[in-house]
């Protein structure tokens, strides 16, 4: 397991269920992290900085060999979309749980993916089919296709380093920032430019393919609720997607995958305009963070399928074998302050209560105590709710989100509570501008006077009562603390 956090735990859970022994790597700062305890074997590979540990190809492969692994699962992020890593894994005689390096190369470089999709007859957004040469080239291109435009790193996806440019004046700053972030995130400064399609929905299609040319699509996910071009809430089916559009998107995803000779699980991302026309954005050549919503409506275990395909097996079903039932929504619970522009926050979690019950699945990397380092992605846990219909899934997600408590650092939970009761989201009317239009001036929740008074009284009681253990079946406050106050 070449990863950490909730995804390492999620993958190793399926391994345990399949009777597959697991070995994981961990960085110095992760010695106490849950994935180290969940694995059968665990090996340190270096300092907290990703370059020194989770991004260090040589060390990861050295550990895999030492532990006698048969395969490496990269999770998402880190080395999951690194073609050189996939090649190195293969060269070391290990199975890479994901598409081979050649496929990752043809799809990982975004202009190459755009060329491939266009060639396969799948529409792409107007823009550059080669990386931009320099800022001047960028300006010329922007003027040709017309502002507003989108600057994107050509080297990788996930929304990192993307910048919207509304006018020529903004270009220099945007160019600097995007180039910088592209270098930091993908080790390559190359950028491309697309015409900005707005308003639009970010809708992606999950596909899975075996090494024998069979490609199946498993339904779509609407991932339009984003901040910094990164997803916060995903759901399936997409509330704006009808059967006709779903079929078109599925077919387009399969076209791209087939053209790329795709193997294993992948996701084709599209932008869909209000009129239902869509363009292909990119192919994510890995397991997605949001894969559980697809698992809940299809009943499939995508990680189990990934492992079987990596072992050379055929897809156990065809397109007709895919049934989808009900609706599912995922909340990404991140270590970010939604009242401060979703600023990531490291810190120490010293109390956690996670929800459960009907329709709720938690894929969590949380524990208490737990130190959340600032070196990695701020995702702490995923709350996924299923229901026979969208309304039930949303009601369950909201109920569960409001049961959850994380003490020690701010999380995205208040944002989720807001969205799940917000009329536009509840009625399915939203696009990629949602956060900007609905959360630009976030307001703290209005609580009842009773709740406010309760909070104040508990705080006063806490100040006055010295901490003491709870007596069986009695309340230290109503007993001892009251006595205190009589003194």
């Amino acid at each position, binding site marked *: 397991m070449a990863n950490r956090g909730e995804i390492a735990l999620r993958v190793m859970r399926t391994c345990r269920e399949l009777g597959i022994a697991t070995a994981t790597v961990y960085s110095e700062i992760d010695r106490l992290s849950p994935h180290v305890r969940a694995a059968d074997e665990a090996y340190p590979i270096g300092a907290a900085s990703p370059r020194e540990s989770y991004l260090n190809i040589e060390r990861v492969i050295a550990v895999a060999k030492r532990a006698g692994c048969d395969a490496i699962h990269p999770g998402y992020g880190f080395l999951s979309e690194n073609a050189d890593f996939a090649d190195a894994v293969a060269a070391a005689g290990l199975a890479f749980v994901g598409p081979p390096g050649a496929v990752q190369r043809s799809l990982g470089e975004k202009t190459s993916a755009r060329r491939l999709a266009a060639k396969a007859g799948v529409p792409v957004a107007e823009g550059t089919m080669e990386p931009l040469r320099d800022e001047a080239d960028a300006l010329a291109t922007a003027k040709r296709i017309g502002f507003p435009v989108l600057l994107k790193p050509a080297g990788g996806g996930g929304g990192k380093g993307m910048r919207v440019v509304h006018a020529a004046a903004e270009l220099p700053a945007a160019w600097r920032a995007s180039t910088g972030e592209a270098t930091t995130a993908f080790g390559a400064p190359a950028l491309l430019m697309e015409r900005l399609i707005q308003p639009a929905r970010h809708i992606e299609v999950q596909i899975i393919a075996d090494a024998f040319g069979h490609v199946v699509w498993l339904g779509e996910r609407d991932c339009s609720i984003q901040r910094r071009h990164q997803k916060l809430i995903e759901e399936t089916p997409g509330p704006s997607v009808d059967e006709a559009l779903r079929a078109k998107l599925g077919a387009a995803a399969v076209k791209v995958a087939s053209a790329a000779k795709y193997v294993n699980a992948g996701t084709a991302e599209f932008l869909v305009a209000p009129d239902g026309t869509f363009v292909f954005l990119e192919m994510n050549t890995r397991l997605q963070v949001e894969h559980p919503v697809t698992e809940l409506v299809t009943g499939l275990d995508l990680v189990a399928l990934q492992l079987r395909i990596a072992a050379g097996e055929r897809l156990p079903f065809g397109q007709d074998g895919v049934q989808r039932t009900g609706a599912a929504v995922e909340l990404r619970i991140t270590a970010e302050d939604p009242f401060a*522009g979703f600023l990531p926050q490291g810190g120490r979690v010293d109390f956690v209560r996670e929800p459960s019950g009907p329709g709720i699945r938690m894929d969590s990397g949380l524990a208490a105590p737990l130190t959340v380092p600032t070196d990695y992605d701020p995702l702490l846990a995923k709350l996924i709710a299923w229901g026979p219909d969208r309304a039930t899934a949303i009601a369950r997600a909201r109920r569960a989100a409001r049961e959850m*408590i994380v*003490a020690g650092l701010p999380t995205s939970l208040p944002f989720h509570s807001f969205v799940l009761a917000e009329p536009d989201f509840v009625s399915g009317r939203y696009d990629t501008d949602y956060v900007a239009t609905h959360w630009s001036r976030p307001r703290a929740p209005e609580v009842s006077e009773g709740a406010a008074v309760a909070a104040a009284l508990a*705080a006063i009681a806490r100040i006055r009562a010295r901490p003491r253990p709870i007596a069986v079946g009695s309340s230290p406050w109503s007993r001892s603390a*009251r006595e205190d106050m009589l003194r």
Partner: protein
Amino acid sequence: MRYAARAGDRDLLVEVTPEGRFLVGDRLLAADLAEVVPGRVWSVVVDGQAHEVAFVGADRVWVDGDEIGLAIEDERVVAAGRAGGRSADARQEIRAPMPGLLKRVHVAVGTAVSEGDALVTLEAMKMENELRAAHPGTVTQVAVGEGTKVEGGTLLIVIRSP
């Protein structure tokens, strides 16, 4: 003992009577408070209304599913006449919320800023994060220069409000 509490957007005056009852404003409440998880989670039942309270941060509390700000001051402070949280507004200190690299400083001493204006860009967690002004005011101090690596908590910018 009297306390001034600010819970969310509500200001409450609470007096704890010698009998350990609570006088909130002019209402005497028979509140049943139970410490469920020591120092962390409390159950509060007032006249049948059941509330769950969890202390999730120095100035943040979780109550019945919502997170709100919470500040308590006892009567000595109350007597001193300072109301909860007010003073914070007059002088804003912008501090680095986490270790990172100060990529850009968008303001200088004397710059007039409005609520929401970007002040500095901090690169951390592989992302560029813009720290913004919470209230309008004038920049009175720029403590750190561009390109500096800063620890969490480092003072970056000071703003005075009218």
